C-alpha cells in the first residue's frame, strides 16, 4: 500500500513458528489451536518437555503418526490424526474446557483477522453476508490461557494492517491478547497500546508505525533477518 512496504523485512511462516517456539519455556502447557499455529510444534526443542493440550480432550499430544498407523479415535482439534506421548492423559470436553477457562494453560497460540491495541481479538468471523459462522473453541482459548499469543501476517493480502485501533470484524475475545507474532515484528499488548518487542531484520518502529497506521511504543530489539 505504501512505498515503504517494499523495503520491509518479512520472515517466513516457518521462521515465525520457530520464533514463537523460542518463547515457550520447558514445562509449559501449550495449546496451538488449529491451522498455522500448529506449525510451532515442529520447532519446539526435542530435548525439552513441553506439554501440548488439544481441546478435544488430551494433554501430552505427540506428532503425526507414521504412515499406516493412523488411529481414528486419536485426533487433534483440527481433526488430524496425532499420537500420544508417554505421560499423556485423556479427558472429556467439559474437563478440557474447564482446564482452558480456568486459566491452567500457560500459552495458547491463535491466528487472527485483527488484533486491537487494547488486545481485542477477531479471528472467527469476517461477518461476510452468507458466510457460515463457526467458532469452535476460539472464544474459550482467547480468554483462557495465561498468555494468549497471536501468530499472523502483519498485513492482509491487500496491504491493510491486522493490528488496528479497534477491530471491525466480530470479536472473539475482549482484551485477551498478550503478544502478537507477525512476519514483520513481535508486538506486546500494553496499557499504552502495541509495544514493538522485536523488529525483524531492518524493520524499524517508524516503518511498523507507518505500515500499521498506529502509534507504537518502542521496546524493540533486533530480531531475525530475512532468510536467516
Amino acid at each position, binding site marked *: 500500500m505504501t512505498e515503504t512496504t517494499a523495503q520491509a523485512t518479512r520472515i517466513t*511462516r516457518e521462521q515465525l513458528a520457530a520464533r514463537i517456539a523460542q518463547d515457550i519455556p520447558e514445562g509449559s502447557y501449550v495449546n496451538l489451536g488449529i491451522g498455522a499455529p500448529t506449525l510451532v510444534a515442529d520447532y519446539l526443542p526435542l530435548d525439552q518437555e513441553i506439554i501440548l493440550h488439544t481441546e478435544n480432550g488430551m494433554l501430552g499430544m505427540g506428532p503425526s503418526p507414521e504412515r499406516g498407523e493412523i488411529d481414528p479415535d486419536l485426533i487433534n482439534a483440527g481433526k488430524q490424526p496425532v499420537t500420544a506421548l508417554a505421560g499423556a492423559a485423556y479427558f472429556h470436553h467439559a474437563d478440557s474446557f474447564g482446564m482452558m477457562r480456568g486459566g491452567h494453560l500457560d500459552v495458547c497460540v491463535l491466528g487472527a483477522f485483527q488484533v486491537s491495541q487494547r488486545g481485542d481479538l477477531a479471528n472467527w468471523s469476517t461477518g461476510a453476508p452468507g458466510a457460515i459462522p463457526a467458532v469452535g473453541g476460539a472464544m474459550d482459548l482467547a480468554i483462557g490461557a495465561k498468555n494468549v499469543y497471536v501468530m499472523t501476517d502483519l498485513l492482509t493480502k491487500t496491504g491493510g494492517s491486522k493490528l488496528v485501533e479497534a477491530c471491525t470484524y466480530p470479536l472473539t475475545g475482549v482484551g485477551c491478547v498478550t503478544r502478537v507474532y507477525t512476519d514483520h515484528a513481535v508486538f506486546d499488548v500494553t496499557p499504552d497500546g502495541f509495544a514493538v518487542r522485536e523488529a525483524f531484520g531492518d524493520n524499524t518502529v517508524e516503518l511498523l508505525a507507518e505500515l500499521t497506521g498506529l502509534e507504537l511504543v518502542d521496546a524493540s530489539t533486533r530480531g531475525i533477518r530475512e532468510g536467516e
Partner: protein
Amino acid sequence: MIDKTVATVEEAVSGIRDGATIMIGGFGRAGQPVELIDALIAQGASGLTIINNNAGNGDVGLAALLAKKRVRKILCSFPRQHDSWVFDGLYRAGEIELELVPQGNLAERIRAAGAGIGAFFSPTGVGTQLAEGKEIREIDGRSYALEYPITADYALVSAYRADRWGNLVYRETARNFGPIMASAATTTIVQVDELVPLGSLDPETVVTPGIFVDRVVAVGERGWLDAGAFVGGVDIEGRPLAGAAASGTEVDQ
C-alpha cells in the same frame, strides 16, 4: 438382573419421536455414533433438533442424517469444516436452522444439565456477538455471561466397552462429549465396540457410570474405520481427499 444391553441398533433407537431433541456425541468423526445414526435414519424420525459439536463430516453419520432432511435445527460450535458439504448446502438453501455456541460453553451447558445446575456465569464469549442479549455480570473484576443448561430427550453416544449395567469406557479422544451428554439426556443410548462381562471393567477406570445409561448395543468394530484410517473425506495418510480444503483452519492466513 439389570441388563441394559439390547440386541440391535434398531431396538436401541426405537421410540424416538418426530420433533425430538437429540444429543449426538463425537468431535468430527472421533466418537461419532455412526451406527446409531444410521439406525435413526432407518427408523425415520424427523423434525429433529440435533446437538453436536459439528454439523457432519463427509457423507456418513450425522451428515447422512442431515442429507435425509430429518433435522430441523442444529446446535453446535463448528459447523463449517472442509468436509461439511452436506450441512453447507442445507444452510445456504435455508433448510436448516443453526444455533452457534462456543465449544466450551456448549460442553459446560451440557454438563450443567446433567449436574442440576440452574445456570452459570461463563467468561467465554463476553463482549462478542455470541453473548448478545445474555445477562452480563462483573464478578471479582471480570465480566461473565449467564449461560443455561442444555438438555435433550436422547443422547446417542459411542463408547469403547460397556458392561450390562451400562458402565462405559472410551478410547482416546473419542471420549469428548460422550460422558457429559450421557448425563444430560433423558434417555441415553450407547453403541460400543464390545460388551464385556460385569466386573471386567476396573471401577477405577469407568468414565461413565451406568446410572447415566439406558440402552447399550454392541456394533463390533466400527465399519467406517478401515485399516486404521478414517473412511470418508480423509485418505489413509490422514490427508483430506481431493476436493476438501487443506485443513479446518478457522483463519485466513
